[in-house]
């Protein structure tokens, strides 16, 4: 039909718009030239420089550590929040859980900056403050996913478990937890991804000498751009891509109806 081909055309253009810039970044990470202007030749050079760059490696270590810790904390707290929001329908908790997700990141970043320094003094900012900051905005994502998973289940299953002799704790352990587990894991992976990728909030809450990969990229972009940025970007993309694909297998509905 005529109308469908028009639809296809504009959609393909939209997909191209989404992917061409990223393809360029990946392509030029293999380009044997300092400028990302035209293709000169294939090289692994920039990846070699990357792995020799101590600052970059330190930042990568930090990013990983922060992401693992923050996603763990956010998953535990977010799962509890998701269960609480589904079962007890509280008034205040959803607001506190979801607002950090909905607000512009800069607001959370600066308010935590002011908070930490006011409460803990001038030297307060450190790795720990970043972890706390990341946990705060990741809780919301996990909670949304877990709550959605619970909403899709037959409520009478939990009553049936108690009816047949299971204490509330046994019901949680043997019935609830196994059934929400895919959602919990998807939430954990999402938190990991968000943490690794975060720039704005990290920007305001890191201490001196604590850098993460996005911060390194930022510095490089502003100071001296070399294709090393392309290389680290490509690697980062591969990592988060894997996480998202796994998460999408476990909780396909979570990635859709958000907002």
């Amino acid at each position, binding site marked *: 039909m005529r109308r469908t081909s028009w639809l296809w055309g504009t959609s393909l253009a939209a997909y191209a718009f989404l992917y061409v810039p990223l393809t360029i970044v990946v392509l030029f990470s293999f380009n044997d030239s300092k400028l990302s202007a035209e293709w000169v030749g294939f090289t692994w050079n920039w990846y070699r420089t990357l792995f020799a760059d101590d600052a970059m490696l330190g930042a990568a270590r930090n990013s990983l550590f922060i992401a693992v810790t923050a996603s763990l904390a956010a998953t535990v707290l977010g799962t509890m929040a998701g269960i609480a929001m589904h079962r007890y329908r509280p008034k205040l908790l959803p607001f506190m859980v979801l607002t950090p997700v909905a607000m512009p990141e800069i607001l959370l970043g600066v308010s935590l900056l002011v908070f930490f320094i006011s409460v803990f003094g001038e030297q307060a900012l450190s790795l720990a403050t970043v972890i706390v900051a990341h946990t705060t905005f990741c809780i919301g994502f996990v909670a949304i996913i877990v709550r959605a998973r619970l909403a899709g289940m*037959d409520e*009478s*299953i939990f*009553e*049936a*478990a*108690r*009816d*047949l*002799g*299971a*204490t509330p704790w*046994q019901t949680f352990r*043997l*019935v609830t937890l*196994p*059934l929400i587990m895919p959602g919990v894991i998807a939430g954990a992976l999402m938190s990991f991804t968000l943490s690794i990728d975060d720039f704005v909030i990290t920007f305001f809450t890191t201490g001196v000498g604590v850098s993460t990969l996005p911060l390194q990229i930022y510095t490089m972009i502003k100071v001296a751009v070399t294709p090393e940025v392309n290389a680290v970007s490509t690697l980062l993309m591969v990592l988060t891509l894997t996480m998202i694909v796994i998460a999408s297998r476990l909780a396909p509905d979570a990635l859709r109806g958000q907002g």
Partner: protein
Amino acid sequence: MALLEIRNVTRRFGALTAVENVSVAIEAGEFFTLLGPSGCGKTTLLRMIAGFDLPDAGAILLDGRDLAGTPPEKRPIHTVFQSYALFPHMTVSQNIAFPLKMAGKSANEIATKVKGALEQVHLEEKGAQYPHELSGGQKQRVALARGLVNQPRVLLLDEPLGALDAKLREEMQFELIELQRDIGVTFVFVTHAQPEALALSHRIAVMNAGRIEQLDEPSKIYGLPVNRFVADFIGKCNILDANVVEAAPGGLKLEVKGLGEVAAPAREGARPGEHGVLALRPEQVRIGAPDTQHDLKNHFSGRVRDLLYVGDITTYVVELPNGTRIEALLPNSAPGRATFFEAGDTVRVAWRHDAGNFLRD
């Protein structure tokens, strides 16, 4: 002593009284049904027996012991839920084994009992399958097996046959009766489908708006309804406005609106001048050609207005001269009945002097 006693139980939700001062004594081994329209309180009552809700007043006693303070997991009472509530992440065998595991039974005993339960519900081959692989009827049977496997004192069934199609429903009804008879566990069954209740139960409690209207065995519920609600709710019934003219031990003389004088069976406490209704079952009304039926006490002429043919019987709606309509039932293979009546035919309807019931509202 009754096995399960519900004593003056009341439950309110804000301004709504879901269950009002209900008292029932259920005997061991009984198939007991709570029957009523949606919203009558039967499910609320069931949930209180299971322990998921607590009465605002009154008590529920098992073997004479008050169940208040005993959480659901400690009550020797199990429920078959309307949606079956099978654990989706466990196999059929694991589902059935669940209550046994909760009771701390040994692995050997569990294996034996699960096997026995599967045989009892004719699902021997399905042990390793998951709920989503089963049909509605099969899920039903797993839910039953799971509820019965560790011999509860009472099994509660919350409209378990609601999701099944008509034919399957009927098959399951037979299976339920057999199961209950073989195992001997007390069943408390909740439904709004009155043919089902009549078919399955030893006794029925008809509920309406939180109260029990009548508690009796099926034949009495059907044949001797105690008030207009029960007569109307159970089966089909002609409900005709009536006044008592004479009351004698041998029978009543009623003045029925639109019909005139009608003879009805005696009713205790009926007094002349009393207002009520005559409840007459369609199968008690005979229908024939205009010049027949003179041998029955109550007979009237009318015209066939509508008829409903359902294969084994035909229901005729006969309109009498003043507009009153009476439903009469005719089996379709009665000997000597060669002709059916058509709409518009003039017919004669009649019933015995001791047919029907005079009821107060």
